[in-house]
Protein backbone atom coordinates (compact mmCIF):
# COMPACT_ATOMS: atom_id res chain seq x y z
CA UNK A 1 0.00 0.00 0.00
CA UNK A 2 1.23 3.51 -0.77
CA UNK A 3 0.79 6.20 1.83
CA UNK A 4 -1.20 9.33 1.15
CA UNK A 5 1.70 11.81 1.35
CA UNK A 6 3.71 10.02 -1.32
CA UNK A 7 0.64 9.76 -3.49
CA UNK A 8 -0.01 13.50 -3.30
CA UNK A 9 3.61 14.33 -4.08
CA UNK A 10 3.61 12.11 -7.10
CA UNK A 11 0.25 13.56 -8.22
CA UNK A 12 1.70 17.07 -8.22
CA UNK A 13 4.33 15.82 -10.62
CA UNK A 14 1.67 14.31 -12.87
CA UNK A 15 2.20 10.68 -11.86
CA UNK A 16 -0.88 8.79 -10.67
CA UNK A 17 -0.37 5.72 -8.53
CA UNK A 18 -3.14 3.38 -7.49
CA UNK A 19 -3.90 -0.26 -6.86
CA UNK A 20 -5.57 -2.52 -9.39
CA UNK A 21 -8.44 -3.01 -6.96
CA UNK A 22 -9.15 0.72 -6.72
CA UNK A 23 -8.96 1.17 -10.46
CA UNK A 24 -11.24 -1.75 -11.12
CA UNK A 25 -13.78 -0.63 -8.56
CA UNK A 26 -13.65 2.97 -9.74
CA UNK A 27 -14.45 1.95 -13.29
CA UNK A 28 -17.35 -0.22 -12.19
CA UNK A 29 -18.82 2.22 -9.72
CA UNK A 30 -18.96 5.19 -12.05
CA UNK A 31 -20.69 3.43 -14.92
CA UNK A 32 -23.58 1.52 -13.42
CA UNK A 33 -26.23 1.11 -16.12
CA UNK A 34 -29.70 0.49 -14.74
CA UNK A 35 -32.35 -1.74 -16.23
CA UNK A 36 -35.73 -0.14 -16.95
CA UNK A 37 -37.74 -2.12 -14.46
CA UNK A 38 -40.47 0.14 -13.26
CA UNK A 39 -43.47 -1.72 -11.99
CA UNK A 40 -45.74 0.89 -10.40
CA UNK A 41 -45.80 4.42 -9.00
CA UNK A 42 -42.13 4.44 -8.01
CA UNK A 43 -41.30 4.01 -11.68
CA UNK A 44 -42.51 7.53 -12.32
CA UNK A 45 -40.16 8.92 -9.69
CA UNK A 46 -37.40 6.84 -11.23
CA UNK A 47 -38.17 8.40 -14.61
CA UNK A 48 -38.25 11.83 -13.04
CA UNK A 49 -34.84 11.11 -11.51
CA UNK A 50 -33.44 10.40 -14.96
CA UNK A 51 -34.92 13.56 -16.47
CA UNK A 52 -33.42 16.99 -16.74
CA UNK A 53 -34.12 18.26 -13.22
CA UNK A 54 -32.63 15.49 -11.08
CA UNK A 55 -30.26 14.19 -13.69
CA UNK A 56 -29.13 10.68 -12.86
CA UNK A 57 -26.77 10.54 -15.82
CA UNK A 58 -24.18 12.62 -14.00
CA UNK A 59 -23.66 9.68 -11.64
CA UNK A 60 -22.81 7.29 -14.39
CA UNK A 61 -26.29 5.84 -14.85
CA UNK A 62 -26.14 7.19 -18.35
CA UNK A 63 -28.56 4.98 -20.24
CA UNK A 64 -31.41 2.90 -18.94
CA UNK A 65 -31.13 -0.31 -20.90
CA UNK A 66 -34.34 -2.15 -21.70
CA UNK A 67 -32.57 -5.45 -22.20
CA UNK A 68 -31.36 -7.28 -19.09
CA UNK A 69 -28.38 -8.63 -20.99
CA UNK A 70 -26.87 -5.16 -21.15
CA UNK A 71 -27.64 -3.83 -17.68
CA UNK A 72 -25.79 -3.88 -14.38
CA UNK A 73 -28.37 -2.67 -11.93
CA UNK A 74 -31.98 -3.64 -11.46
CA UNK A 75 -33.98 -0.95 -9.71
CA UNK A 76 -37.12 -2.78 -8.56
CA UNK A 77 -39.42 0.21 -8.44
CA UNK A 78 -42.95 -0.63 -7.39
CA UNK A 79 -45.00 -3.43 -5.94
CA UNK A 80 -43.88 -6.92 -6.86
CA UNK A 81 -46.99 -9.08 -7.09
CA UNK A 82 -46.99 -12.85 -6.97
CA UNK A 83 -48.03 -12.93 -10.60
CA UNK A 84 -45.00 -10.85 -11.52
CA UNK A 85 -42.45 -12.46 -9.16
CA UNK A 86 -41.31 -15.37 -11.41
CA UNK A 87 -40.65 -12.87 -14.17
CA UNK A 88 -38.60 -10.64 -11.87
CA UNK A 89 -36.41 -13.58 -10.89
CA UNK A 90 -36.08 -14.74 -14.47
CA UNK A 91 -34.98 -11.30 -15.64
CA UNK A 92 -32.49 -11.12 -12.77
CA UNK A 93 -31.07 -14.44 -13.89
CA UNK A 94 -30.61 -13.07 -17.38
CA UNK A 95 -28.47 -10.18 -16.21
CA UNK A 96 -24.73 -10.82 -16.49
CA UNK A 97 -22.50 -10.56 -13.43
CA UNK A 98 -21.64 -8.26 -11.66
CA UNK A 99 -25.20 -7.24 -10.95
CA UNK A 100 -26.88 -5.30 -8.18
CA UNK A 101 -30.44 -4.79 -6.98
CA UNK A 102 -31.91 -1.65 -5.49
CA UNK A 103 -35.31 -2.13 -3.85
CA UNK A 104 -37.03 1.23 -4.34
CA UNK A 105 -40.03 2.13 -2.31
CA UNK A 106 -41.88 0.51 0.56
CA UNK A 107 -43.57 -2.05 -1.68
CA UNK A 108 -40.35 -3.57 -2.97
CA UNK A 109 -38.83 -3.70 0.50
CA UNK A 110 -41.65 -5.36 2.39
CA UNK A 111 -44.94 -5.17 0.56
CA UNK A 112 -45.60 -1.61 1.61
CA UNK A 113 -49.15 -0.28 2.07
CA UNK A 114 -50.49 -3.29 0.18
CA UNK A 115 -49.06 -5.81 2.58
CA UNK A 116 -52.43 -7.37 3.39
CA UNK A 117 -52.68 -8.76 -0.09
CA UNK A 118 -53.31 -12.19 -1.44
CA UNK A 119 -51.39 -11.23 -4.54
CA UNK A 120 -48.61 -9.05 -3.12
CA UNK A 121 -45.12 -10.42 -2.52
CA UNK A 122 -44.00 -9.14 0.85
CA UNK A 123 -40.70 -7.81 -0.35
CA UNK A 124 -38.55 -8.64 -3.35
CA UNK A 125 -35.77 -9.76 -1.03
CA UNK A 126 -37.62 -13.05 -0.56
CA UNK A 127 -36.21 -14.23 -3.85
CA UNK A 128 -33.34 -11.90 -4.72
CA UNK A 129 -30.44 -10.46 -2.74
CA UNK A 130 -30.97 -6.74 -2.35
CA UNK A 131 -28.02 -4.38 -2.05
CA UNK A 132 -29.65 -1.05 -1.25
CA UNK A 133 -33.16 -0.40 0.01
CA UNK A 134 -34.82 3.01 -0.32
CA UNK A 135 -37.75 3.70 1.99
CA UNK A 136 -40.52 6.02 0.91
CA UNK A 137 -43.85 5.90 -0.82
CA UNK A 138 -42.73 7.02 -3.34
CA UNK A 139 -39.18 8.07 -2.45
CA UNK A 140 -38.18 11.40 -3.89
CA UNK A 141 -35.80 11.40 -6.85
CA UNK A 142 -33.12 12.75 -4.53
CA UNK A 143 -33.50 9.60 -2.45
CA UNK A 144 -32.86 7.49 -5.53
CA UNK A 145 -29.74 9.53 -6.23
CA UNK A 146 -28.61 8.92 -2.65
CA UNK A 147 -29.17 5.21 -3.17
CA UNK A 148 -27.06 5.20 -6.32
CA UNK A 149 -24.32 7.00 -4.39
CA UNK A 150 -24.57 4.43 -1.57
CA UNK A 151 -24.26 1.67 -4.12
CA UNK A 152 -21.22 3.38 -5.59
CA UNK A 153 -19.64 3.53 -2.14
CA UNK A 154 -20.37 -0.14 -1.64
CA UNK A 155 -18.73 -1.01 -4.94
CA UNK A 156 -15.71 1.18 -4.22
CA UNK A 157 -15.14 -0.56 -0.90
CA UNK A 158 -15.32 -4.09 -2.26
CA UNK A 159 -12.23 -6.24 -1.79
CA UNK A 160 -11.45 -8.39 -4.78
CA UNK A 161 -9.65 -11.22 -2.98
CA UNK A 162 -10.40 -12.99 0.22
CA UNK A 163 -13.54 -14.59 1.65
CA UNK A 164 -15.80 -11.55 1.17
CA UNK A 165 -14.98 -10.99 -2.44
CA UNK A 166 -17.91 -10.06 -4.65
CA UNK A 167 -20.11 -12.70 -6.17
CA UNK A 168 -18.82 -12.50 -9.70
CA UNK A 169 -15.33 -13.45 -8.59
CA UNK A 170 -16.51 -16.20 -6.28
CA UNK A 171 -17.40 -19.44 -7.99
CA UNK A 172 -19.03 -20.96 -4.90
CA UNK A 173 -21.85 -18.46 -4.54
CA UNK A 174 -24.60 -18.85 -7.15
CA UNK A 175 -25.49 -15.89 -9.30
CA UNK A 176 -28.74 -17.30 -10.61
CA UNK A 177 -31.69 -17.99 -8.42
CA UNK A 178 -34.46 -20.52 -8.89
CA UNK A 179 -37.64 -19.23 -10.46
CA UNK A 180 -40.84 -19.78 -8.44
CA UNK A 181 -43.82 -21.46 -10.05
CA UNK A 182 -47.51 -20.47 -9.83
CA UNK A 183 -49.24 -22.70 -7.34
CA UNK A 184 -52.88 -23.05 -6.45
CA UNK A 185 -53.00 -20.31 -3.84
CA UNK A 186 -49.52 -18.92 -3.60
CA UNK A 187 -46.19 -19.16 -5.32
CA UNK A 188 -44.27 -22.37 -4.80
CA UNK A 189 -41.99 -21.92 -2.95
CA UNK A 190 -43.24 -18.85 -1.15
CA UNK A 191 -39.73 -17.67 -0.40
CA UNK A 192 -36.20 -18.74 -1.17
CA UNK A 193 -34.59 -19.96 2.09
CA UNK A 194 -31.08 -19.43 0.75
CA UNK A 195 -31.76 -15.74 0.27
CA UNK A 196 -34.13 -14.77 3.04
CA UNK A 197 -34.75 -16.06 6.52
CA UNK A 198 -37.35 -14.43 8.73
CA UNK A 199 -35.43 -12.62 11.42
CA UNK A 200 -35.71 -13.71 15.03
CA UNK A 201 -37.64 -11.19 17.05
CA UNK A 202 -36.42 -10.35 20.51
CA UNK A 203 -39.25 -9.08 22.64
Amino acid at each position, binding site marked *: MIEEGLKNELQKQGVYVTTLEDLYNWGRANSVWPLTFGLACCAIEMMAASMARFDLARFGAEVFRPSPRQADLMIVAGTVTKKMAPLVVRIYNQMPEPKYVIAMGACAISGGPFK*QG*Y*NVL*KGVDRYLPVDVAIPGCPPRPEALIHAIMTLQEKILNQKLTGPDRPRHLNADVPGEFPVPVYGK*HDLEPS*KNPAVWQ*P*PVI*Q*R
Partner: protein
Amino acid sequence: METLEQIQTRLAAAVPSAKVEILANDCAAGERSLLVDAANGFAVAKFLRDDAQLLLDYCSNVTGIDWPDKEITEKIKVKQTVDGVEKEVEEVKKTLRPGYLEVVYHLYSMTLKHGPIVLRLRTGNRADQTHLPSLTPLWRGAEFQEREVYDLYGVLFDGHPDLRRILMWDEFEGFPMRRDYLAPDDFEYEPTPHDEVLEAAKKHYPTEVKA
Protein backbone atom coordinates in the same frame (compact mmCIF):
# COMPACT_ATOMS: atom_id res chain seq x y z
CA MET B 1 -86.14 10.66 -17.38
CA GLU B 2 -89.12 8.67 -16.18
CA THR B 3 -89.38 7.18 -12.72
CA LEU B 4 -88.62 3.57 -11.86
CA GLU B 5 -92.31 2.81 -11.37
CA GLN B 6 -93.09 3.92 -14.91
CA ILE B 7 -90.23 1.78 -16.23
CA GLN B 8 -91.56 -1.14 -14.20
CA THR B 9 -95.03 -0.88 -15.76
CA ARG B 10 -93.60 -0.68 -19.24
CA LEU B 11 -91.35 -3.66 -18.55
CA ALA B 12 -94.34 -5.65 -17.36
CA ALA B 13 -95.92 -5.01 -20.76
CA ALA B 14 -92.78 -5.71 -22.80
CA VAL B 15 -91.34 -8.71 -20.93
CA PRO B 16 -94.33 -10.19 -19.11
CA SER B 17 -92.56 -13.12 -17.49
CA ALA B 18 -89.98 -10.96 -15.73
CA LYS B 19 -90.21 -10.40 -12.00
CA VAL B 20 -88.97 -6.86 -11.49
CA GLU B 21 -88.68 -5.40 -8.02
CA ILE B 22 -87.65 -1.89 -6.99
CA LEU B 23 -85.22 -1.85 -4.07
CA ALA B 24 -85.10 1.11 -1.72
CA ASN B 25 -81.95 3.04 -0.92
CA ASP B 26 -82.01 5.20 2.19
CA CYS B 27 -78.82 7.18 2.05
CA ALA B 28 -78.64 10.85 1.09
CA ALA B 29 -78.29 10.80 -2.70
CA GLY B 30 -78.65 7.18 -3.53
CA GLU B 31 -80.43 5.76 -6.54
CA ARG B 32 -83.00 2.99 -6.21
CA SER B 33 -82.32 -0.14 -8.18
CA LEU B 34 -84.25 -2.69 -10.23
CA LEU B 35 -83.87 -6.29 -9.12
CA VAL B 36 -84.59 -8.73 -11.94
CA ASP B 37 -84.67 -12.51 -11.75
CA ALA B 38 -81.80 -14.24 -13.51
CA ALA B 39 -83.82 -16.06 -16.14
CA ASN B 40 -85.20 -12.87 -17.69
CA GLY B 41 -82.18 -10.67 -17.06
CA PHE B 42 -81.09 -10.66 -20.67
CA ALA B 43 -84.53 -9.78 -22.05
CA VAL B 44 -85.00 -6.95 -19.56
CA ALA B 45 -81.55 -5.56 -20.33
CA LYS B 46 -82.26 -5.69 -24.06
CA PHE B 47 -85.46 -3.74 -23.53
CA LEU B 48 -83.62 -1.13 -21.48
CA ARG B 49 -81.01 -0.74 -24.14
CA ASP B 50 -83.27 -0.58 -27.18
CA ASP B 51 -86.32 1.27 -25.87
CA ALA B 52 -86.68 4.65 -27.57
CA GLN B 53 -87.34 6.63 -24.42
CA LEU B 54 -84.57 5.09 -22.37
CA LEU B 55 -81.84 4.22 -24.92
CA LEU B 56 -79.38 3.10 -22.24
CA ASP B 57 -76.48 2.43 -24.55
CA TYR B 58 -73.64 2.88 -22.07
CA CYS B 59 -72.97 0.28 -19.40
CA SER B 60 -70.76 2.16 -17.03
CA ASN B 61 -69.93 -0.24 -14.24
CA VAL B 62 -70.34 -3.95 -13.47
CA THR B 63 -69.81 -4.88 -9.83
CA GLY B 64 -69.84 -8.18 -8.04
CA ILE B 65 -70.97 -8.38 -4.42
CA ASP B 66 -70.82 -11.30 -2.03
CA TRP B 67 -73.63 -11.67 0.50
CA PRO B 68 -72.79 -14.60 2.75
CA ASP B 69 -75.37 -16.52 4.77
CA LYS B 70 -76.68 -14.25 7.45
CA GLU B 71 -78.48 -15.12 10.62
CA ILE B 72 -81.18 -12.58 11.36
CA THR B 73 -82.33 -12.41 14.96
CA GLU B 74 -85.70 -10.87 15.60
CA LYS B 75 -87.44 -10.31 18.86
CA ILE B 76 -91.14 -10.97 18.42
CA LYS B 77 -93.92 -10.80 20.91
CA VAL B 78 -95.81 -14.06 21.32
CA LYS B 79 -98.87 -14.71 23.42
CA GLN B 80 -98.18 -17.51 25.88
CA THR B 81 -100.01 -18.92 28.85
CA VAL B 82 -97.77 -18.81 31.89
CA ASP B 83 -99.18 -20.05 35.18
CA GLY B 84 -102.67 -19.79 33.83
CA VAL B 85 -102.31 -16.09 32.94
CA GLU B 86 -102.11 -15.10 29.30
CA LYS B 87 -99.15 -12.81 28.87
CA GLU B 88 -97.15 -11.39 26.03
CA VAL B 89 -93.64 -12.75 26.08
CA GLU B 90 -90.73 -11.70 23.96
CA GLU B 91 -89.18 -14.54 22.05
CA VAL B 92 -86.02 -14.46 20.05
CA LYS B 93 -86.56 -15.89 16.57
CA LYS B 94 -83.56 -16.72 14.42
CA THR B 95 -83.93 -17.05 10.66
CA LEU B 96 -81.20 -17.88 8.22
CA ARG B 97 -81.18 -15.69 5.14
CA PRO B 98 -79.33 -17.80 2.58
CA GLY B 99 -76.37 -16.24 0.88
CA TYR B 100 -76.04 -15.31 -2.77
CA LEU B 101 -73.77 -13.48 -5.16
CA GLU B 102 -75.01 -10.34 -6.79
CA VAL B 103 -73.99 -8.48 -9.94
CA VAL B 104 -74.93 -4.80 -10.25
CA TYR B 105 -74.98 -2.94 -13.59
CA HIS B 106 -74.98 0.86 -13.76
CA LEU B 107 -76.55 1.94 -17.05
CA TYR B 108 -76.46 5.41 -18.57
CA SER B 109 -77.42 6.87 -21.91
CA MET B 110 -74.85 8.74 -23.95
CA THR B 111 -77.33 9.73 -26.64
CA LEU B 112 -79.99 11.11 -24.34
CA LYS B 113 -77.56 12.04 -21.55
CA HIS B 114 -79.56 10.62 -18.66
CA GLY B 115 -79.12 7.93 -16.10
CA PRO B 116 -78.31 5.98 -14.09
CA ILE B 117 -80.54 2.96 -14.00
CA VAL B 118 -79.17 0.38 -11.60
CA LEU B 119 -79.88 -3.22 -12.59
CA ARG B 120 -79.25 -6.11 -10.20
CA LEU B 121 -79.08 -9.84 -10.84
CA ARG B 122 -78.72 -12.40 -8.09
CA THR B 123 -77.55 -16.00 -8.17
CA GLY B 124 -79.34 -18.87 -6.47
CA ASN B 125 -76.71 -19.52 -3.84
CA ARG B 126 -72.97 -19.28 -3.37
CA ALA B 127 -72.12 -22.89 -3.98
CA ASP B 128 -73.52 -24.58 -7.05
CA GLN B 129 -76.14 -22.27 -8.57
CA THR B 130 -73.81 -19.47 -9.59
CA HIS B 131 -74.87 -19.01 -13.21
CA LEU B 132 -76.11 -15.70 -14.54
CA PRO B 133 -76.80 -14.49 -18.09
CA SER B 134 -73.98 -12.48 -19.55
CA LEU B 135 -74.84 -9.01 -20.82
CA THR B 136 -71.69 -8.79 -22.95
CA PRO B 137 -73.63 -9.44 -26.20
CA LEU B 138 -75.58 -6.27 -25.44
CA TRP B 139 -72.80 -4.04 -24.09
CA ARG B 140 -69.29 -4.91 -25.19
CA GLY B 141 -67.87 -2.86 -22.34
CA ALA B 142 -69.06 -5.47 -19.87
CA GLU B 143 -66.68 -8.07 -21.28
CA PHE B 144 -63.64 -7.46 -19.11
CA GLN B 145 -65.66 -6.50 -16.07
CA GLU B 146 -67.68 -9.73 -16.13
CA ARG B 147 -64.44 -11.66 -16.45
CA GLU B 148 -63.23 -9.86 -13.36
CA VAL B 149 -66.40 -10.77 -11.45
CA TYR B 150 -65.86 -14.39 -12.48
CA ASP B 151 -62.22 -14.29 -11.42
CA LEU B 152 -62.76 -12.70 -8.04
CA TYR B 153 -66.23 -13.96 -7.05
CA GLY B 154 -66.91 -17.10 -9.04
CA VAL B 155 -70.07 -16.06 -10.91
CA LEU B 156 -70.33 -17.99 -14.17
CA PHE B 157 -71.73 -15.92 -17.02
CA ASP B 158 -73.59 -17.88 -19.69
CA GLY B 159 -73.02 -16.44 -23.13
CA HIS B 160 -69.77 -14.65 -22.39
CA PRO B 161 -67.41 -14.98 -25.37
CA ASP B 162 -64.22 -15.59 -23.40
CA LEU B 163 -64.71 -16.39 -19.74
CA ARG B 164 -61.37 -16.94 -18.05
CA ARG B 165 -59.35 -15.41 -15.28
CA ILE B 166 -58.19 -11.89 -15.83
CA LEU B 167 -56.39 -10.57 -12.77
CA MET B 168 -55.10 -13.72 -11.05
CA TRP B 169 -52.89 -16.28 -12.75
CA ASP B 170 -54.58 -19.14 -14.60
CA GLU B 171 -53.55 -21.88 -12.19
CA PHE B 172 -55.05 -20.05 -9.22
CA GLU B 173 -57.88 -21.77 -7.40
CA GLY B 174 -60.43 -20.02 -5.34
CA PHE B 175 -62.25 -16.72 -5.50
CA PRO B 176 -60.33 -14.10 -3.56
CA MET B 177 -62.86 -11.33 -3.07
CA ARG B 178 -65.39 -13.56 -1.31
CA ARG B 179 -65.86 -12.77 2.33
CA ASP B 180 -64.75 -16.20 3.50
CA TYR B 181 -61.53 -16.39 1.49
CA LEU B 182 -58.47 -17.15 3.58
CA ALA B 183 -55.35 -15.51 2.19
CA PRO B 184 -52.21 -17.66 2.16
CA ASP B 185 -50.15 -17.33 5.29
CA ASP B 186 -46.93 -15.67 4.25
CA PHE B 187 -46.59 -13.10 7.00
CA GLU B 188 -43.52 -14.69 8.47
CA TYR B 189 -41.95 -11.44 9.49
CA GLU B 190 -43.89 -8.74 11.28
CA PRO B 191 -42.05 -6.20 13.41
CA THR B 192 -45.00 -5.17 15.61
CA PRO B 193 -47.88 -7.58 15.19
CA HIS B 194 -51.09 -7.44 17.13
CA ASP B 195 -54.60 -8.97 17.06
CA GLU B 196 -55.04 -11.65 14.44
CA VAL B 197 -51.69 -10.92 12.79
CA LEU B 198 -50.00 -11.74 16.12
CA GLU B 199 -51.76 -15.12 16.26
CA ALA B 200 -50.65 -15.88 12.71
CA ALA B 201 -47.12 -14.62 13.36
CA LYS B 202 -46.65 -16.78 16.47
CA LYS B 203 -46.75 -19.88 14.32
CA HIS B 204 -43.69 -18.70 12.42
CA TYR B 205 -41.22 -17.17 14.82
CA PRO B 206 -38.63 -19.88 15.46
CA THR B 207 -37.44 -18.75 18.87
CA GLU B 208 -38.70 -15.91 20.95
CA VAL B 209 -36.67 -14.57 23.79
CA LYS B 210 -38.85 -12.74 26.27
CA ALA B 211 -36.84 -9.75 27.34
